[in-house]
């Protein structure tokens, strides 16, 4: 479980002094605002679809197009969230092997196996359960029902994938709330929305994180 030692905050938080330090309450609030914003985007389309159908049933095709927009908008946001876990370009095979060895030293056997299968590290924290990828992390909270997708990365593109994950994992373990402060929120919403947009190989890691968050 990641620590919450604010006596030694993540040094990278100094680069974003305008951001209030993330905590469970602030994340809940951001999640609620995200949901509100999504509702504000889709309600006009649903309203227009219903109104148009009532006024002119022959315009059903236009009503259906409006409903499709209402469905599509949250899906696009979820796709943006899923992108934070998308694998980046691979380094040479030897470097990848070496980096995976170091990452393997940082996690337990089960996590190592899951990373080998999905490319993601599942890490229990105080704010929820994290899925750590190469260029971002997903926080699963509210007993596995809610996800917050964060875009956060190390600035060296030449690093092998295992090292990129290890960078994020070490920062997360040192200061979980600082990590969530530094990272950019790309999506917040229902876990099922994100699951639909994840590559199938990654979905077991999300399921495992949700299961762990319910414990």
């Amino acid at each position: 479980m990641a620590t919450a030692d604010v006596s030694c905050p993540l040094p990278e938080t100094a680069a974003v002094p305008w951001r209030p330090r993330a905590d469970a309450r602030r994340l809940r609030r951001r999640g609620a605002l995200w949901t509100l914003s999504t509702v504000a985007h889709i309600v006009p389309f649903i309203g227009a679809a219903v109104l148009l159908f009532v006024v002119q049933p022959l315009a059903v095709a236009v009503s259906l197009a409006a409903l499709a927009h209402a469905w599509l908008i949250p899906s696009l946001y979820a796709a943006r969230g899923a992108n934070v876990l998308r694998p980046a370009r691979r380094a040479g095979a030897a470097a990848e092997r070496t980096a995976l060895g170091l990452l393997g030293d940082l996690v337990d056997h089960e996590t190592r196996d899951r990373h080998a299968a999905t490319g993601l590290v599942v890490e229990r924290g105080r704010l929820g359960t994290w899925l750590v990828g190469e260029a971002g992390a997903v926080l699963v909270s509210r007993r596995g029902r809610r996800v917050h997708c964060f875009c956060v990365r190390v600035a060296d593109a030449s690093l092998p994938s295992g090292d990129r994950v290890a960078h994020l994992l070490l920062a997360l373990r040192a200061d979980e709330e600082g990590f969530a402060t530094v990272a950019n929120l790309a999506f917040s919403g229902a876990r099922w929305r994100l699951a639909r947009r994840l590559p199938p190989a990654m979905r077991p890691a999300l399921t495992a994180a949700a299961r762990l968050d319910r414990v």
Partner: protein
Amino acid sequence: MSRLVRMDCSGHTTLAEWTAEDAAGVEAAVAAFGAELDRGYFAMVSTGPGHAEQVKELPLDADLVILRLPISGG
């Protein structure tokens, strides 16, 4: 044997190895540690399962000290 490693494009590079009794090894490790911090690396030490801590001085009793680069929001 304690190790100071830096994550880099090769996977990782071992910069120094030392034992508490090896004064020359300790001296070399401290010098390498300081040089990497000056280059902008952060030093991390695992402090138990799921826990890590940033250190600004080389912890001589740590088994493994890992140097990482800063992260930022993408």
